[in-house]
């Protein structure tokens, strides 16, 4: 503190009255406000030297607006003191721009730098911290030689503000030249290198990510590396030291010094504290015998962690023992043997008390609550908890990865469970337009997966649509003017009446294909198809609660007007059928299952008109013959999913379909046949009511029966088919926004005209690779490259087609 010509004695402070405060050096800031902030208010009494002056500087400094602040006493007049605050204003930082790094790195760096924009001034300190943060960040990603430059430019939109431009030259990522180990006896270095999952030596044959060094991942690897050794029975194994050294300009070397220690085995395994279950049963479930290689990971897995619930903890947790705990204590270690004592705390058997849902900002409570399997008054069960989470996921309205049940035990042996959910967008929209054949083709499809019919006429429920009851409504229209028009509507309610898990569905459609002339024109021809169907579905509790049963009634009407190239040219045909479907679905995820199975058996039948309509089918006109279609149709499908290793999933699938007739005089139905091959998408073929089955590697409808007339068989389809698929799937993205996976597949399938010819092993085969992506708003999109091994004689190009592209298929096809 300087006073012109006066020295203030720090050892003899005395009271002064502030006579006034002035500000000098400020250019852009409001003087009065700064003086107010300094709290050196005129008329106040302060000690000088004292706290008030120190605080004044502190308060101003905290604003982060100045490079330098000086507090001067301009004059002292008896008991009155006058201050002058002298500041050096610095330009404020109004923006940060980065060049030379990717967008995601930019986001990460910005997060690490914190929110400096608008709050900091531009000075050396800012440069240095920014440089340090960036260099460290990139170093950890394997960029060892980063260069950082700066430029500032004035912000055109704001006074006294600068934008800091940071130019980053990342340089090349360093690679790992070699990894060496020291201290390993039993394990070969090559084997140990494999345990470092993300840090690999470079090698000429590694094309992708060939040995790039990433510090973060290397740190992770070191931990996993030791865990791996422990798992193999070397429970003393430890990392003594490691060093990453510069090998040359582009590469580093890694040296790891370790202690291997001896290999251990399980000795005596004993159980203490178990009252509910006998030791024999626990030993059986635990499954590790004395003499097996000692592994803490295996021990943990058998005690608590197995995925399918056959561990000791699950035994208790599924029976109400929520606070169950087991602590494996290594009681004695002699030689290479470890005795383990399992100390069990069983605790009380908990009863579920309150069950509630949190996070449902759109979906009504009851839609979620009715799917939950842990109900008030029941004993707590982990299995029921997990099943509830799966059922909530199946609703399709919530982000499955964020569905989280939290049990909170109470003092009185009851437990409250809160299911945390997070809504996700579940509506789908399909909008496409195109220009073809001199006509505009337009498609508009809307699917609302969480509709609320009862709020349809309540204005205030529209946000922007009535939602929250878990009902599904879809509307779709496609037209290219006079030539082709198709409109469909469907609605389904999963809990019809709200009291039982009985789903009700209704759908209707109409479509018209014609030559575009007026109906009165004598040249006019066209076909119209109308249909309506009702269905009732039920979840079953027997044989187990994965089963479901669906009954449906469908009526289709075909009206033909001079239509060429069909069974008959003018007239009407009706297909009235009832369908029974029984299915068992235990897949753990509906877009990318990693386990579980799906089985489905369907029977569809029409009334046997020929028994009672007195038509002589040998002499009847086509118009009469086809008036009422009659057939019975049987279909069976099985899929199963299994995780092979890591994220790699195997899918196996078998399908079989058979279309039969009641009466040989009537012959096999021309409708409802199977067309095998291609992308599996319903094109115009549905006009004949055919069922399209995808088979990659072959063209649409190309897989026809051996010896059949190709042109007839391709357009009519076949009454019998079978198809098998084996597929390996690897997820590339698995998030709420998108699911994408790569596949390698082998397919085999064939069609037959007569049951007598049917041979499930006489099949056409193909193999290939593909990619699928699921986007919540579009559905599934996929592209596959398949190679067909078997030529189909008589069909163009032997029936082969390498690429198949499929889009937005919600039903059939993809699975």
């Amino acid at each position, binding site marked *: 503190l300087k006073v012109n010509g006066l020295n203030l004695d720090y050892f003899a402070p005395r009271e002064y009255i502030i006579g006034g405060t002035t500000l000098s050096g400020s250019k852009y*800031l*409001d003087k*009065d*406000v*700064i003086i107010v*902030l300094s709290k050196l208010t005129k008329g106040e009494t302060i000690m000088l030297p004292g706290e008030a002056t120190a605080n004044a500087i502190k308060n101003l400094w905290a*604003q982060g607006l100045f490079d330098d602040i000086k507090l001067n006493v301009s004059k002292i007049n008896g008991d009155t003191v006058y201050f002058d605050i002298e500041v050096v204003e610095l330009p404020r930082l109004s923006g940060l721009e980065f060049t030379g790094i990717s967008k995601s790195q930019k986001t990460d760096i910005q997060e690490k730098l914190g929110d400096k924009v*608008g709050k900091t001034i531009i000075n050396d300190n800012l440069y240095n911290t920014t440089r340090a943060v960036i260099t460290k960040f990139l170093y950890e990603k394997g960029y060892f030689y980063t260069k950082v430059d700066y430029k500032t430019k004035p912000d055109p*939109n*704001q*006074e006294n503000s600068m934008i800091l431009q940071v130019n980053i030259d990342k340089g090349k990522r360093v690679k790992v030249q070699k990894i060496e180990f020291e201290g390993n006896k039993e394990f070969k270095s090559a084997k140990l290198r494999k345990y470092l999952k993300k840090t690999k030596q470079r090698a000429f044959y590694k094309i992708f990510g060939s040995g790039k060094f990433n510090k973060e991942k290397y740190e992770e690897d070191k931990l996993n590396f030791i865990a791996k050794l422990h798992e193999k029975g070397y429970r003393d194994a430890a990392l003594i030291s490691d060093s990453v050294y510069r090998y040359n300009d582009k590469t580093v070397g890694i040296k790891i010094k370790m202690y291997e220690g001896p290999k251990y085995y399980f000795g005596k395994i004993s159980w203490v504290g178990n009252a509910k279950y006998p030791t024999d049963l626990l030993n059986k479930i635990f499954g590790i015998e004395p003499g097996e290689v000692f592994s803490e990971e295996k021990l943990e897995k058998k005690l608590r962690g197995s995925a399918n619930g056959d561990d000791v903890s699950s035994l208790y947790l599924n029976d109400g023992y929520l606070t169950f705990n087991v602590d494996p204590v290594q009681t004695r270690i002699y030689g290479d043997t470890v005795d383990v004592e399992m100390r069990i705390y069983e605790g009380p058997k908990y009863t*579920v*008390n*309150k*069950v*509630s*849902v*949190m*996070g*449902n*900002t*759109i*979906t*009504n*409570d*009851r839609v979620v*609550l*009715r799917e939950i399997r842990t*109900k*008030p*008054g*029941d004993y707590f069960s982990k299995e029921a908890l997990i099943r509830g989470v799966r059922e909530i996921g199946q609703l399709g309205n919530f982000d499955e990865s964020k569905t989280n049940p939290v049990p909170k035990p109470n003092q009185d042996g009851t437990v409250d469970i809160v299911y945390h959910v997070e809504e996700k967008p579940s509506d789908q929209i399909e909008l496409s337009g195109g220009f073809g054949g001199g006509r505009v083709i337009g498609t508009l499809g809307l699917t609302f997966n969480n509709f609320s019919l009862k709020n349809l006429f309540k204005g205030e429920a529209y946000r922007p649509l009535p939602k*929250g009851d878990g009902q599904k409504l879809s509307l779709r229209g496609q037209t290219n003017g006079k030539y082709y028009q198709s409109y469909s509507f469907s609605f389904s309610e999963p809990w019809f009446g*709200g*009291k*039982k*898990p009985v789903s009700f569905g209704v759908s209707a459609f109409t479509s018209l294909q014609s030559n575009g002339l007026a109906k009165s024109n004598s040249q006019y021809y066209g076909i119209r198809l109308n249909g309506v169907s009702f269905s009732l579905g039920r979840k079953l*509790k027997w044989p187990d609660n994965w089963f479901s049963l669906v009954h449906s009634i469908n009526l289709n009407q075909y009206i033909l007007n001079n239509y060429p190239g069909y069974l008959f040219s003018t007239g009407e045909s009706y297909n009235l059928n009832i369908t029974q479907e029984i299915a068992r679905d235990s897949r753990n995820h509906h877009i990318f299952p990693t386990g579980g199975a799906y089985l489905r058996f369907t029977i569809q039948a029409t009334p046997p008109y020929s028994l009672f309509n007195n038509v002589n089918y040998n002499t009847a006109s086509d118009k009469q013959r086809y008036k009422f279609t009659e057939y019975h149709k049987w279909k069976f499908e099985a899929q199963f999913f299994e995780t092979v290793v890591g994220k790699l999933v195997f899918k196996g699938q078998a399908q079989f379909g058979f279309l039969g007739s009641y009466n040989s005089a009537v012959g096999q139905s021309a409708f409802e046949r199977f067309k095998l091959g291609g992308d599996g998408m319903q094109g115009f073929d549905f006009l004949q009511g055919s069922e399209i089955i995808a088979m990659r590697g072959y063209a649409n409808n190309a897989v026809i029966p051996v010896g059949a007339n190709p042109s007839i068989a391709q357009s009519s389809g076949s009454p019998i088919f079978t198809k098998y698929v084996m597929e390996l799937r690897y997820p590339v993205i698995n998030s709420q926004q998108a699911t994408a996976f790569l596949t390698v597949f082998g397919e085999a399938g064939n069609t037959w005209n007569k049951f007598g010819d049917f041979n499930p092993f006489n099949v056409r085969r193909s193999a290939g690779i593909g990619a699928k992506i699921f986007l919540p708003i579009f559905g599934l999109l996929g592209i596959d490259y398949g190679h067909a091994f078997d030529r189909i004689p008589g069909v163009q190009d032997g029936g082969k087609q390498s690429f198949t592209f499929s889009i937005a298929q919600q039903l059939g096809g993809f699975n």
Partner: protein
Amino acid sequence: CKSRFEKLRLSNDVAKKYQEGIRLYNKKDYNKALILFEGLVQKYRGTAEAEDLNYYYAYTLYRLKDYTTARYKFKEFADTYPASKNAEECRYMGAYCYYLDSPKSSLDQENTYKAIDALQLFINLYPKSDRAKQAAQYIANLRDKLETKAFDNAKLYYDLGGYDITNYKSAVVALKNAQIEFPDIKYAEEMNLLIVKAQFMYAKNSYANRQEERFEQAIEYYNEFMEAYPDSKYAKEAKQLKQDSESGIVNAKKQLAENAAMIAKYKALEESDKKKKDTTTNKNLDNKTQK
């Protein structure tokens, strides 16, 4: 060619922007006013005009029905300018925004709880304010909503009983829980009757050997109900349930007795069968020993 508003928005004339913002606000053109206010808030930081600006800014958000941001701005205002003449109003508006953000009873009620806290805080801070009365009314409305939710969700289990009878048991637990959570819940009478009903349905659909105990429980719930509501309008219905429970017990006992008689009869038959067999084996043995 840019509009006059665009030109102003891009200009650096903060004073003019401020004036125009207020003018637009008064003209109810809140969208445009918001654009100007958003830009100005940063620049007016640390100035005398900031107080009024923030007040208008919060109200603009409120008028645009962005209650989530508005309540944050109102609270920020009240925290920053506790001595302002508008502090009380903003504290109230912040709580009121929470109130407006509280969804219908069948959705997550996190905001409802927060609204109650915020309104209560207002009442505590300004107990004599005219607004405190209104705040208390809002709290009552919100409590009402929570009660409705508790009742609906408990009743759901009763409705689902037809498909799985253990849901009736869950209904009893859930209804009792709701009463513990909201001791003076307005649906209390209806809920008590529903407890009797649910317990009765549970007993009725149980196996015969469990029925007596469960019907007894239903009768106990009936007694509790009548004690609490001696002249309930549901008395007749409840009485019927009690009578049905009593006859249910009689029937169950009868059936169990019949079952027991059947089993006894069957056992006797088996016994006599065995005896016949035994005599033959004994005879054989006798023969053997005789030989």
